Each structure stands twice: as C-alpha cells, then as structure tokens.
C-alpha cells in the first residue's frame, strides 16, 4: 500500500537554532498519528512544514494526490499546494479565531471552501452548511450567527466543520483541544474520533495532552529539542516508555 503522506528527513532551522531535524515517517490512509512533546520541542514547526505553511530547509513531504499519485509537496508549485490546502488537506488551528472568519456567519464560514473549489449554487451550499453544523452538534438555527456569538467550544467545532466540508483526506490539527475546559474537551474528542472513523480520515495531531493521543492516535511520535526521541504504537509508547524523556512525560501526568 502507498502511504498517504511520506515524510523524509525534514529539517527546519531558524538561523542556528534547530526547529526540527531528521524527521521521517509514513502515514497510511485512515491512520491517526500523534505528535507529543513539551513547548518548544518543534512540534508546531514540523506540522507547519508538513502543511506547507513553512518551507523546510531539507527533506521531502510526499503526498499521494488523487490525480497524479505521490508528489513532493515541498517542490510543487504554489498554486498546486494552495489547491491541496483547500481540497485534500485541512488545518485545524489551536485558536479557532485563527482558522475562522470572525466577521462572516457560520454558514459562510463552512461554505467558503465549497465556493473556493467552484460551488456556485446557494441552496446546495447552505444545505451542506446546515448538515455540517448538525454533524458537529451545533443547532441549525445558528447558521446565520457570527462565530463571535459562539462559545469557545462551538467555535472550535465550527472550525472543524469548515475544514471537513470538502471531504479532505488528511487533517492537520494543532492542539485542537487547547484552551477548552475538560468537559468540552471530552465532547470535542468524542466528536473528532467519530468523524475520523466515519470519514476514514488520516490525521496528524500535535498536542501536549497525552489523553488526546491516547483517545485518538494510532501511532505516536515523541519529540524533544527538535528531534524525534521515540515513536511507535500509542499504547506501547505510553504504557512502556523507553526513552528517558518519554518516561518523564508519562509520569508527569497527574493520575486522578
């Protein structure tokens, strides 16, 4: 089977400081990959390199496109990469405000990607928007409200709906549950798990919350100071950590 995303020796430096280096992994269709590590360990740098927001200094990010098969997204042309960014890829930001248009209604937010790929039928766009609001558990009568009138958890769910409406195959998530209270987090995780399974999505989730990866991720990568220190099946890594840093990380979680 061809991997959906094949990352080969990604390296990104900021001057002499290392963002991330020597990162390689394959992600297969339907697989969810977690990336954990402390602040400043290079998780977000890596994610932004993979999603095309940052240009890596070295390495290849080969994505299995629908039309042309595996293509290196680092060297592909900018229009092609941006096209991927609004069709086959989705990016869920930590802060919903970064991923939403706060001055546009919920329906418009969800419809934007549809219109960007050429949908020109108002009725269809609106039906899809309402359908997706339902899937992320927002009432249909909020379709014309602006995200500013939504709670933090609703904004995050709206951001997810907006990203998934075009049926992407790969979702990048940067701390999707950051800044939400625990009960809202639990609902969001439950929702995400349902959507990922139902749509057969592949996802890369960056987080520092081990509970999130325990619930969602099939495989786990632990990063420290820009390097991958350990990787493997989630349960394996969390239950039997080998690297000293992973042991520290696992033991730091407060057991209630």
């Amino acid at each position, binding site marked *: 089977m061809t991997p959906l995303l094949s990352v080969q020796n990604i390296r990104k430096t900021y001057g002499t400081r290392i963002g991330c280096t020597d990162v390689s992994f394959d992600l297969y269709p339907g697989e969810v990959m977690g990336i954990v590590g402390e602040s400043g360990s290079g998780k977000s740098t890596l994610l932004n390199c993979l999603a095309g927001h940052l240009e890596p200094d070295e390495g290849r990010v080969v994505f299995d496109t629908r039309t042309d098969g595996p293509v290196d997204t680092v060297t592909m042309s900018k229009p092609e990469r941006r096209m991927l960014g*609004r069709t086959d890829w989705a990016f869920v930001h930590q802060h919903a405000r970064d991923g939403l248009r706060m001055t*546009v*209604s919920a*329906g*418009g937010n969800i419809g934007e990607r549809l*219109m960007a790929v050429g949908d*020109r039928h108002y009725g269809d766009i*609106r039906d899809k928007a309402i359908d997706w609001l339902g899937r992320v558990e927002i009432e249909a009568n909020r379709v014309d409200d602006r995200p500013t009138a939504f709670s933090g958890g609703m904004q995050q769910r709206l951001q997810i709906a907006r990203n998934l409406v075009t049926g992407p195959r790969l979702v990048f998530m940067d701390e999707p549950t950051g800044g939400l209270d625990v009960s809202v987090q639990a609902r969001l995780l439950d929702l995400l798990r349902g959507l990922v399974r139902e749509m057969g999505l592949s996802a890369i989730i960056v987080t520092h919350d081990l509970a999130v990866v325990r619930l969602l991720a099939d495989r786990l990568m632990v990063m420290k100071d820009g390097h991958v220190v350990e990787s493997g099946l989630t349960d394996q890594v969390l239950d039997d950590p080998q690297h000293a840093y992973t042991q520290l990380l696992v033991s730091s979680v407060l057991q209630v």
Partner: protein
Amino acid sequence: MSDYNFAYLDEQTKRMIRRAILKGLAVPGYQVPFASREMPMPYGWGTGGVQVSAATLTPEDTFKVIDQGADDTTNAVSIRKFFENTAGVATTEETEKATVIQTRHRIPEAELTEDQILVYQVPIPEPLRFLEPRETETRKMHALEEYGLMHVKLYEDISQHGAISTSYAHPVRVSGRYVMDPSPIPKFDNPKLEMDAIQLFGAGREQRIYAVPPHTKVVSLDFEDYPFEATKADHPCDLCGAEDSYLDELIMDDAGNRMFVCSDTDYCRSRRAAGHEGRLAKEDAA
C-alpha cells in the same frame, strides 16, 4: 494658454501613467501600481481619475465630467473647470460629443462608441479588501485566482437579506480572469461594462490603475439559483418619461410625495428637448 504644463501634470508623470494604462489594457482587470501624484484636491474627490484623464487628454479632445450621472454637481463642475484652466480643452455636457468622459459612480445612458474613453474615479480598487485586509494576501489571491472569498460576500448577502443586496460596486470577472471592482457604479450599469469604448479606472490614494479594453467579456458574479439582476427603481422618469434609465429618488415634501428623475442629466435633457414628457414635466417648467 495657461502657465501650467498641458493638463497640469509634467510630461514625465504623464508618461509614467500612460505606461500603467497600457499595462492595464494589456492585462484586463489587473490593478497596476503607479506613482500617484499629489493633486490640488483632496483624496476621495477623484485624484485618480484626474491623473488618468490628464495623461489621456490631447489638445483636440472634448472633455465631459459627470458625478453620479450629473454634469452640474460640485465634483463635476470643479474637475471640468480644472481641465478648462490647465489644458484649455473644449468641454461639453453632451455624451455623444465628448471624446474623454471622466465619471464618478455612473456609466452614461447613451451608448459609447469606439472613439471615446471613459475614465472612472475609484475609491477602493481592491474588491477583496473588506473580506481580506492584508494586501500581500489579496495580491496572492489575485495571482492564484482564488476567488472563493468573493462569493462568501454574496452568500452573506443572501443569508441576511434574501437576495444579493450589493446594489453598487458589484464585483465582476473580466475576460475570465481577474475579479475587479467596477468602482461604485449601481449594479444597473454592470451590463454596460461590455462596451465599444475604452474604460480606464484610476485610484489616486490607493495608487492603482486598471482597465477594460473595448469588447471585453465582463461577467457580474452571482449564484446559479440567485442570478445577477440589474435593478433600478420601478418607475418612469418624472421629467422625461424614460423607462430604461437609472433613476434618483427625490423627496419633495414631508407629506410623502416623491419624484423619480434620471440620474443622467444629459440623457434626461436631450429626451425632453426631443419632446418626451414625464408625469411632472409641466409642473417643473412652472
């Protein structure tokens, strides 16, 4: 002759503007940056249009200025006087006789011909501006033809008002490529953007020039189930009886009486001269 160089601007500046105009004509709808000069009038009063007119005028030209369709409002009168003083060109109020027409917010009702140039004053040339505030990003969006956001604006209109409520400056796609702000003309005028004359757009404060060459395809953006409609007040003109022209609504008294008159004063005047009469034509004369 006046003490000014012909048409106020120096020759180097006019050459620079002409280069921008030619580039604009070569790439229809593309906003060409140019080094806009300080003009002896405030921004927002047509500094862009005036510079384009100055670079376009020749001593043989006949010049006409309209402001919201009218020849006799402050903006139109002062710009007309400006070029009478600095260029000494002939001026006219008759659309047919003019070779260069500078306009603010209207396209004349009379059909323009191949030997005429229509110069628009543009306040904000970027159609995506209120949706995406970053200039770096809007330029990228134009370059990559990412125009989904423009439809988000129209979507919002329909979801809030039940119809595309953008009544002026309705965005258009020029020659199947660039999305363009046609300046704040009423959307009634949008179908007229496909014409025989050259159309030049000048934005002084924003330092942009763009153009639509003659016979270029100009499509107003819409949805399949909410097609574009060129709307106007559903009345005939009360002075000349015209049913096909864009109308201004005037409130006559505090008893609710109102009258509708052509916004294009020259069109209305020429129709009345030809004997057409509207509902209030007699009273107006009295």
